[in-house]
């Protein structure tokens, strides 16, 4: 008898317990992109794109945006909540945008909840927006049902071929880790499209400079091994040639002592000629092409590196390579030395074929 009483009470407790807030899919609205503009030193303007799916079969989602000015991520979300028809949740957030103006003033406060909250995943894509985030998010683009969908397709399917993956995890890791500076893609709204503009370089959490989109492909080659993208270069006679990347690898070699370090960067690139108008491709010309590319790429890479060293930023993670090479690594001394460390690039290319034509 006692036993039955216990189990009855237990079942009642199980069934009647309702202090947990439920989140039923039909009753919530997913924020799929969120972006922040600079207002003044303490405040920013947040825009959340939360497409609304009306009831019914085969309905098109409606674009819905909520804008609010506030001090922190959560503060702004609370204010956006005041306008939305359902509860806004960030569990399926896919894109996180920051305006360039805001990035110049530092993003540490804004990115803190990304690392702290369990409501946001770690594979959210991040980008810096040149111009107003609100304009970019709220514009009705002709090539996608909602702007949020366009943006997430653009970031996830397209941009990853051109630059290293800009996820929240990578950003936080680079920003927190003491051995590398973060970078993010810059996008802008041009006419009625979203366009990739280049890479934003950060020093700690402040935007300090950028790379153009052409340079940023070279950056990807120097940053990680890749299998995507094309690179264009010119021969002496001003003829332009495009090569497609089959695979490229990069290797950093740190040598010397901690007081007198030197870094060699070896890139090996396996390419395929895709576009070579008015050039007869023979054995000799292939050699010439290879030489022209390595020479050009080395010059471009060195120039890029000089820029990094002038700005004292380290998006390539050379400090990390030095740390893993030297015992008892002295971070302070390295930071001072970083702008003057000799870094040499060795760009090697092998062109495997010239497509299906041997003209």
């Amino acid at each position, binding site marked *: 008898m006692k036993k039955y009483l216990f189990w009855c009470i237990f079942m009642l407790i199980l069934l009647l317990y309702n202090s947990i807030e439920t989140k039923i899919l039909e009753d919530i609205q997913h924020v799929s992109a969120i972006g922040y503009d600079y207002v003044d030193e303490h405040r920013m303007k947040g825009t959340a794109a939360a497409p609304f799916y009306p009831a019914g079969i085969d309905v098109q989602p409606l674009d819905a945006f909520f804008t609010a000015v506030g001090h922190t991520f959560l503060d702004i979300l609370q204010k956006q909540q005041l306008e939305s028809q359902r509860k806004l949740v960030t569990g399926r957030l896919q894109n996180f945008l920051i305006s360039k103006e805001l990035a110049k003033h530092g993003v540490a406060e804004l990115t803190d909840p990304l*690392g702290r909250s369990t409501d946001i995943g770690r594979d959210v894509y991040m980008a810096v927006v040149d111009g107003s985030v609100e304009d970019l998010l709220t514009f009705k683009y002709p090539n996608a049902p909602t702007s949020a969908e366009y943006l997430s397709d653009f970031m996830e399917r397209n941009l990853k071929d051109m630059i290293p993956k800009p996820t929240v995890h990578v950003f936080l890791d680079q920003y927190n880790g003491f051995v590398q500076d973060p970078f993010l893609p810059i996008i802008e709204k041009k006419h009625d499209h979203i366009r990739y503009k280049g890479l934003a370089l950060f020093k700690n959490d402040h935007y300090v400079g950028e790379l153009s989109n052409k340079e940023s492909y070279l950056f990807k080659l120097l940053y990680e091994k890749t299998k995507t993208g094309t690179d264009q270069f010119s021969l002496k006679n001003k003829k332009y040639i495009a090569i497609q990347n089959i695979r490229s690898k990069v290797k950093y070699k740190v040598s010397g002592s901690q007081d007198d370090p030197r870094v060699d960067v070896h890139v090996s690139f396996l390419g395929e000629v895709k576009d070579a108008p008015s050039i007869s491709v023979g054995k000799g010309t292939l050699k010439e092409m290879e030489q022209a590319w390595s020479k050009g790429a080395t010059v471009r890479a060195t120039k890029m590196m000089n820029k990094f060293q002038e700005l004292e930023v380290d998006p390539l993670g050379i400090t990390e390579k030095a740390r893993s090479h030297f015992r008892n690594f002295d971070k302070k001394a390295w930071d001072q030395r970083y702008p003057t460390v000799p870094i040499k690039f060795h760009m090697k290319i092998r062109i495997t074929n010239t497509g299906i034509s041997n003209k």
Partner: protein
Amino acid sequence: MLPLPSENRKVSPFFVFYLIVAAQFGLGVFSFQREIVKVVGNDAWIAVFIAGISIHVVLWMIYQILNKGTNDITVIHKELFGKWLGGMLSLALIVYLLTLAISVVRSYTELIQVWIFPQLETWYMALILSVLVYVYVIGGFRIIVGICFLSFIFTTPIFFIMLGFPLRHMQISHLFPIFDHSAAELLSASKTMTYSLTGFETIFFFYPFIKDAPRSQKWGHYGTAYSTISYLVIMIVSLMYFSKNQLLESIWPTLTIWQIADFPFLERFEFLGLSFWLFSVVNSVCLYIWAGTRGLKQLFSLKQKHSLIVILFMTAVAATFLKTREQIDQLNSVMGLVSLYVMYAYIPFIFFYQMIKGKSRRTS
């Protein structure tokens, strides 16, 4: 003293593997990295390795003690130290295991509260866990073995599949330079590892329940090796996946690693993984509580059914009283220290004491 359990209440020697893994491979896998990385940074995996080796030595000692005593630890204590002192030692060991159970229950509840349901109240979770544990423990030792086996089957594949997702973000350079820290630092870091690997002392109590028990030693070592290697793999993956500061900042790095996983049908994997971990939690709590009540039965001839209800009630109440992160952290660090002493002071002491006593008896 109770009679030794009859043949039909015993289990085959190879089940010791699952029992040991169940005790060692629990909630520790989520959060053990930080304390070690704090001390030795990129050499943390060496500290894990050292801890694993030392645990093998401790396990060997435990088997030596039990093989000589051919009964559980309460009987051995009584033979070595007499009724009162031996009884006190047994009671201390029982209290230690029961406190471990409290700490596991509370830590798991905290995980659920932080990651999934912030509004969840501790007493509710503690109640559900207690009832679950009651249902299993009342079924006897063989049921617990079954649960340990099932939880191994459920949690292991998930765990290793999940470690595949961070692969594309890993940087091998994070591991270098190897041996950048002194031996003293490595040893002091491996100390914190013992708390994650603790719990296998329950073997002191379930030893009589193993068929042909001395032969089960190799399975015990396999189990320890399995958990050590798992911890080693997680440590290496976390070191390569996170930069050092990030690793120090996250309280549960393994769950943060899971956050990167993304299936088309499931955006956030860690919620699912965390729920699956209930198996792992229930089986270690079952094991601790069973060992505790079994010990009480040996000492005071209490009926296991009655002491079980009282102890589960006390566990739930104690867990409810721990409210903040700091309190939980404090309990865990105290238990870490205690388990360190149990492992490296108490067990070797018993081992040597028994050896000396055995020798002097033979000569006299």
